[in-house]
C-alpha cells in the first residue's frame, strides 16, 4: 500500500497541540479558491514542463518520469509555480512503514503526528495503517480534513485517531459551493458526529470577506457544536486569508483586518468556546 506524499515537516508548531510531525498527502477532492498549498491538489502526470524550467537542473526525465534530486534543489519553487496540474515533482510514493520511519526520527521530541493534505481521508487505509504504527509507539494521531468524506463509515480509522481538525469553509451550502465548488452536507454531519464522539479537536474557518459571510458561518457553526462542548473542549481557529502561496487568479482577495477577526472571536467565545485562536 502506498500514498503519494507531498512533504513531511519534522517539527510543526501549527498542526495541532504541541510539537508534531506533519505529513502532507497529495491529492484533493475539492477546489478552495484560497488554497494556500495548491501544489498538493493534483497528481503529477510527468509532462516534464518543470524539468525544462528548473534553474539548477535538480529535475530530470528518467524513463518517462520526472525525477527529483533533493541535493541540487535550492527550493525556489519554480516547478510548483509553473505546474498546470496543481502538483509538484517533489512528491514521493511511500508506504505507511516508510512514512513511519521518517516520523520516528523525531521521537522523543514530538507528541504526535498530524496528517494533512491535499485531503488525507481520500486514502483511509493508508492513514489507518500509519496511525496504527504511530499508536504502537505512543504517538498521538491527528487528521486535518475538509470533512467531505463520511467519518461514520471510517470507524476503523477513527479507532486509531485521537483527534480531527475540521475545516468549516462556509456554513451555508451555496456559500460553500462558491468557496470550494463542492457541497458541505457531509462536512456539517461530520462536525456533529466527530463532536458527539469526542474526537473533534478543532474547527477552522478561513475568512475571505468577498467569498462568504464569515459572521454567519462562525455563528452557525458555534451554535451547531455548542451542545457538544460538554463532551470535549472543541477549539475554533479563525484564520485570515493571506495571498501567500495562493494561485494567481485567486490572490486578489482582501485580507480581513484584526478588528473584524476579533469580532468573530467574540462570537465564538460568547457561545462558550474557550480555545479560540486568530491566525
Amino acid at each position, binding site marked *: 500500500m502506498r500514498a503519494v506524499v507531498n512533504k513531511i515537516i519534522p*517539527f510543526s508548531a501549527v498542526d495541532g497541540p504541541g510539537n508534531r510531525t506533519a505529513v502532507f498527502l497529495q491529492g484533493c477532492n475539492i477546489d478552495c479558491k484560497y488554497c494556500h498549498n495548491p501544489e498538493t491538489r493534483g497528481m503529477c502526470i510527468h509532462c516534464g514542463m518543470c524539468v525544462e524550467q528548473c534553474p539548477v537542473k535538480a529535475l530530470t526525465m528518467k524513463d518517462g518520469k520526472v525525477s527529483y534530486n533533493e541535493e541540487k534543489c535550492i527550493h525556489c519553487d519554480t516547478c510548483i509555480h509553473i505546474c498546470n496540474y496543481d502538483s509538484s515533482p517533489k512528491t514521493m510514493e511511500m508506504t505507511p512503514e516508510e512514512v513511519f520511519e521518517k516520523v520516528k526520527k523525531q521521537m522523543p*521530541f514530538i507528541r504526535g503526528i498530524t496528517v494533512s493534505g491535499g485531503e488525507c481521508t481520500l486514502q483511509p487505509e493508508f492513514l489507518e495503517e500509519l496511525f496504527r504504527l504511530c499508536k504502537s509507539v505512543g504517538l498521538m494521531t491527528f487528521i486535518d480534513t475538509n470533512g467531505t468524506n463520511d467519518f461514520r463509515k471510517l470507524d476503523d480509522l477513527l479507532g486509531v485517531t485521537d483527534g480531527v481538525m475540521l475545516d468549516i469553509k462556509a456554513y451555508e451550502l451555496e456559500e460553500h459551493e462558491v468557496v470550494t465548488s463542492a457541497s458541505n452536507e457531509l462536512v456539517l454531519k461530520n462536525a456533529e458526529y466527530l463532536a458527539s464522539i469526542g474526537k473533534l479537536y478543532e474547527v477552522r474557518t478561513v475568512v475571505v470577506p468577498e467569498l462568504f459571510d464569515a459572521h454567519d458561518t462562525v455563528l452557525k457553526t458555534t451554535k451547531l457544536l455548542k451542545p457538544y462542548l460538554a463532551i470535549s473542549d472543541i477549539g475554533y481557529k479563525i484564520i485570515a486569508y493571506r495571498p501567500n502561496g495562493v494561485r494567481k487568479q485567486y490572490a486578489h482577495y482582501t485580507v480581513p483586518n484584526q478588528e473584524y477577526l476579533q469580532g468573530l472571536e467574540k462570537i465564538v467565545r460568547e457561545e462558550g468556546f474557550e480555545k479560540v485562536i486568530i491566525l
Partner: protein
Amino acid sequence: MKDISMEKVNQVRNNMLETVKSPTLTHEQKVAAMANHADSLLNVLDLPEGLLELMEDTADGKCICDLNEGHAPLRPRYIVPDYEKFMREGSKFLQLDAPTDLQEALSYLLIFYKHVPSVTNYPVYLGQLDHLLEPFMKDVKEEDAKKLLRLFLIQIDRTVLDSFAHANIGPEATVAGRLLLEVEAELKQAVPNLTMKYEEGVTPDDFALQAIHTALKSAKPSFANHKMFESEHKTPYVIASCYNGLAYAGGAYTLSRLILGNIAKRAKDIKDFKENQLPYVMDIMARYMDERIKFMVEESGFFENNFLAKEGFIHRDRFTGMFGMVGLADCVNILLEKEGIKGRFGHDENANDLGVEIMELIKNFNDNHMNPYCEVSEGHFLMHAQVGISEDIDVTPGTRIPIGEEPEELIDHLMVCNRYHQYFPSGTGDIFPIDSTVNRNPDFILDIIKGAFRNKLRYLSFYEKDSDVIRISGYLVKRSEMNKLESGENVLQDTTALGLGAVKTGHVLERKVR
C-alpha cells in the same frame, strides 16, 4: 613578586588614562576597569613554561584564554553563597538578623548581593528565589507580594549591573516561582538571568508552560535538565553566570578556556592534533589553573578573611576549577580541511564523530588531572563549554554549530547538541530564537524540552525572534540598549557592551529562527 618592565608599566598607564577619559563607560565601569589595570601590574604566579606564547598571541593564534581574571586572583571567579543559611540565620558581618517577612527577606537579599564578589564585581548567583521566598508568601496577599517582587526585580536590574547575575527556580511549582515568572514577563528586563530547573514528572506542565510564556517575552528563564545536573554533582548544584553548574555554598575558583580552532591551526593533521598539540596545550592550561588556584587558596587570604567564608556562607572545599573550551566546530572544520576530507561540523557524521573524539580526549585528560583543592569534584576540574567573549572573532562558542550554518531542521540541530551536552557538568547550552506563532502553542516548546532532556541534553534557551531582550551567548541584553550604546550613549549594564561586540563579530542576530 617579580619585576615588570617600564614599557609594560607605561602601557598600563596609557590604558588607565584611556579608561578615565572614556565617553561611554559609566563611573562604576571605570572604577572596575581601573582595578583591572592595577592588577595587571602584579606578577605573583609561577606561570608554566610555554603559557605566554599560547596566551598572548594575536586573536587568530591564541590557544589559551583566561577570560581577564587578572594576574593576582583576589577572589574566586564565581561565588555561590548559601542564601538559605542567610535566610535562616542572618549575618553578623552585615548586622542583619534572619528576615521575618517578605519585605525583610527581599531587602536583606539586596543588601547581601552588594557583598558577593565575582570576576565581574557583581554576584553571579542570586539564589534559588522561589525556595528562599516561599516561606514568606503565606503571610502576604498575592497582589502585595507581586508588587514587592516587582520592586525587588527592578532594583536588581538597575543596581546589579551585569546580566551574569543568575537566579534559579524549580523544579517544583511554588507560589513564589509563579509570581516571579509573572512579573518577569511584564518587566522584560535583562537582569537577572534566570533558570528553571526542569524535571519531567516533578515540574507540572502548567508551571513549565508559564515559564515558556515568560521566556518568549523576556528571553528567560532557560531550562536546565535537573535530573542530569543532580546526578553529576555530589552536593546540591546551582546554575550561575551564563549557565554554569556549580556546587551550592561553593563555586569556581577560575575558568580558562582552550581555543580549539587555534590549536587545530598549529597541527599538521588530525594525528598531530590529537597526539601532540592538544595534549600540550591542555597540560599547560591545567597547570596554569592549578597555579591560580594555589595562589587563591594559599596566599590571597580570601577564604580566611572574607565574611562569606568566615560565617559559612561558602566552603572552600566546595570550589572547583572550570576547564573550558570554545570552538569545537572551528577545530573540526579546520582539521578536516587539512586532511582534505569533506565534512562540516553539525552536518556530516564524520565531522560530528571527530568532534566526539576530541571531546573524549579532553574528558580523558581532565579525568586524569588532579588538583588538591577541587575536592567537590573528586579532585578534577569540571568541564565547561565556554560561550565566547566579545573580542572573539571567528570563534564558535563551546560545541555549538556556527550561526549561519545551523541545520535546516531543528531536529537535526538538536541531535547534534545531543552528542556534546553530556561532557559539561559545569555548563553548556544551546539557544533558539522562536517564531512568534509559537505563542499560540507553547506546548511545542515544552515537547522539545521534554524530548531533549529525555535524550540527555543539558540546557536550552529560547526567545521570541522579535523580543527586545535577547540571549547573546549565555547572558541577556536588550536590543534597545545596544542601539543606545552604539550611538555613543552611556548604558547602565556592563553586559550591553559585551552583547554589542558579540552582535558585531558573532552574528548573534542572525541565528536561525525555529
